[in-house]
């Protein structure tokens, strides 16, 4: 028999934040898809590649997506976040490799924000 435990308040907040980040990314994907040919449209999935052989985005389309994510985060969370990163175009270390790595990167940035802002 398994014992179900209620999530701690911090876990619940973390889950809510994680869902909001995912929703912000998917909202940005919707925006970017409007300007992409049907066959290049991005799937709203954690595994959707944003760079490399699995992605059909060129560098301009990737930049458009990242900026749309920033603006979507600001709209949904009220947080001005800059997703600038020196590893942006590194195939192995870029936080923009796929939707999942992007979501994790945003979570780290938000956690690092000073509590006063």
């Amino acid at each position, binding site marked *: 028999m398994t014992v179900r435990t209620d999530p701690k308040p911090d876990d619940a907040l973390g889950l809510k934040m994680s869902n909001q980040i995912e929703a912000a990314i998917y909202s940005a994907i919707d925006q970017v898809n409007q300007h992409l040919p049907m066959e290049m449209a991005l799937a709203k999935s954690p595994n959707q590649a944003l760079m490399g052989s699995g992605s059909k985005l060129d560098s*301009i389309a990737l930049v*458009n997506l990242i*900026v749309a994510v*920033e*603006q979507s985060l*600001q709209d949904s969370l009220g947080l*001005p*976040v*800059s997703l*600038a990163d020196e590893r942006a175009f590194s195939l192995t270390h870029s936080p923009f490799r796929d939707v999942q790595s992007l979501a994790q990167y945003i979570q780290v940035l938000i956690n690092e924000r000073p509590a006063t*802002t």
Partner: protein
Amino acid sequence: MNDPQPRKVMLISGARKGIGRFLTEHYLAQGWHVVGCSRGPTDLQHDHYRHAQTDVANEDDVVKTFGEVRKVEGRLDALLNNAGVASMNHFLLTPARTAEAIMRTNYLGTFLLSREGAKLMRGNGGGRIVNFSSIGVPLKLEGEAAYNASKAAIGELSQILARELAPFSITVNVVGPTPIATDLIRNVPKASMERLLKRQAIARLGTFADVVNVTDFYLRPESCFITGQTIYLGGVS
């Protein structure tokens, strides 16, 4: 019903005084909505003016300011990166902290505002960025190593941004003013100033109107094919 002529929004850094204040009042009079920023408060009151107390070299400050512009104005059409600091000294006597402070305000400030401004312009189909250099760059003025290096960096930055931002229909150009009677040259000795003016083709101090003439040109709709250019005033090249 769609507004046939949506309002045009401009952000001017260093808007509190000097050239920045003049630019602000000029573009307000032309019907622009202007967001001015500076480290201190302003006494300027206008229905179409909002002031943001922003340190242009502070990334968080800048991101927050443009977030507000996006929230309140919903768009950005032009950015005038006018904020700047100057210092004259012999290279051998220039403290590292002075060189760093000049580079942070002049170069990093232009870098950050251009980055965040371009993100907003991209959303409304393009825009204009005008950066501020100085005739000190082509004249290689002694005593201004730190200042001129920061302004030369702005020139290089602008030429590359012109290429990187062209796909977003954003032009990036530079105006290089001569000395103008502002706080920036208050402490320059008279003899040095006269020597400098003699190196210009037209040997006089510049005026705010001389600068606005160039920014007006870069902002004109017809200037959409002009990018990556620097216009120096006073006949300096």
